[in-house]
């Protein structure tokens, strides 16, 4: 089962990366498709963050929220992403 997942993930990760190598010379998108594509990463990130973040500690949803708020503040201040990650881990660790 896990092998099917790994191979499937590898294939669907490869496809979007590799197709442009073949088609970039001849491609012209409609504007709205471009706008949709450019919004996808942000929508994906949003959907991945919430409500999943509340399940970091299944019995204490507020812990994930606190960690998330620390991450938002630090990221907004321009702190490097790795420090954002470490600070969020530390927050949850200390509050546990």
């Amino acid at each position: 089962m896990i092998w099917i997942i790994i191979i499937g993930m590898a294939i669907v990760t490869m496809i979007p990366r590799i197709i442009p190598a073949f088609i970039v010379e001849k491609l012209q998108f409609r504007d709205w498709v471009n706008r949709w594509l450019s919004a996808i990463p942000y929508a994906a990130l949003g959907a991945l963050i919430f409500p999943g973040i509340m399940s970091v500690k299944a019995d204490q949803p507020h812990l994930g929220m606190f960690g998330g708020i620390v991450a938002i503040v630090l990221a907004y201040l321009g702190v490097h992403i790795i420090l954002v990650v470490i600070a969020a881990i530390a927050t949850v660790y200390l509050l546990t």
Partner: protein
Amino acid sequence: MMQKGFAKGFPIMVGYIPIAITYGVLAKQAGMSLTELTLMSMLVFAGASQFMGANMIAVGAGAIEIIVATFVLNFRHFVMSLSFMNRLRGSALKWKLPMSMGLTDETFAVTAIHPKEANMKNGMFFYAGIMVTAYFSWVAGSFLGGVVGEIIPERLSQSMGIALYAMFIGLLVPSVKKNKKIALIAVLAMLINALCVQLGMSTGWAIVLGTIIGGSAGIFLLKEEQA
């Protein structure tokens, strides 16, 4: 040129190793073996989707959900790859193919601020250097995480579960700072996702729907910027 690429890839290495270790720890907890989680890093080489995959495996999501969610999540690489390949128009396909495979958010970001090398002699070795550095630190870090996962205290490894979300926040917030409408797109996706979960949909499909419907708001919201 290759060495110059290694040097520019170094910050990616510093950023990747702890995240890769965290991935290894989580993947181990999700029930994956050391071989499986390392192979996933070697074959998939996409941080966010591997975290998501491990999480979804842990909650018992089905293979198709995980694969579709991965596809939707990684579709952003299509846009990045288009932009990067556009810059490499003059290069041979034998270079473009491995370059496209080494594309991640981070390698894309670093190559994007070094556009000149695309037209330089042996410039491809510069980009290859960045990607090789990123790839090996990611794979090695994952393996290491899978190894230390056993000896790490449970309170710490549980707390590391936030790492994935903190990384997504860390990727999202700088974009929101540049364009507030991006926050609206992300929040809309969050709400659609939460609603789908409330309606009893599985995590995987909820994320897929949240992304596709939430992202379509960008068709209207990102209008002025593109025009």
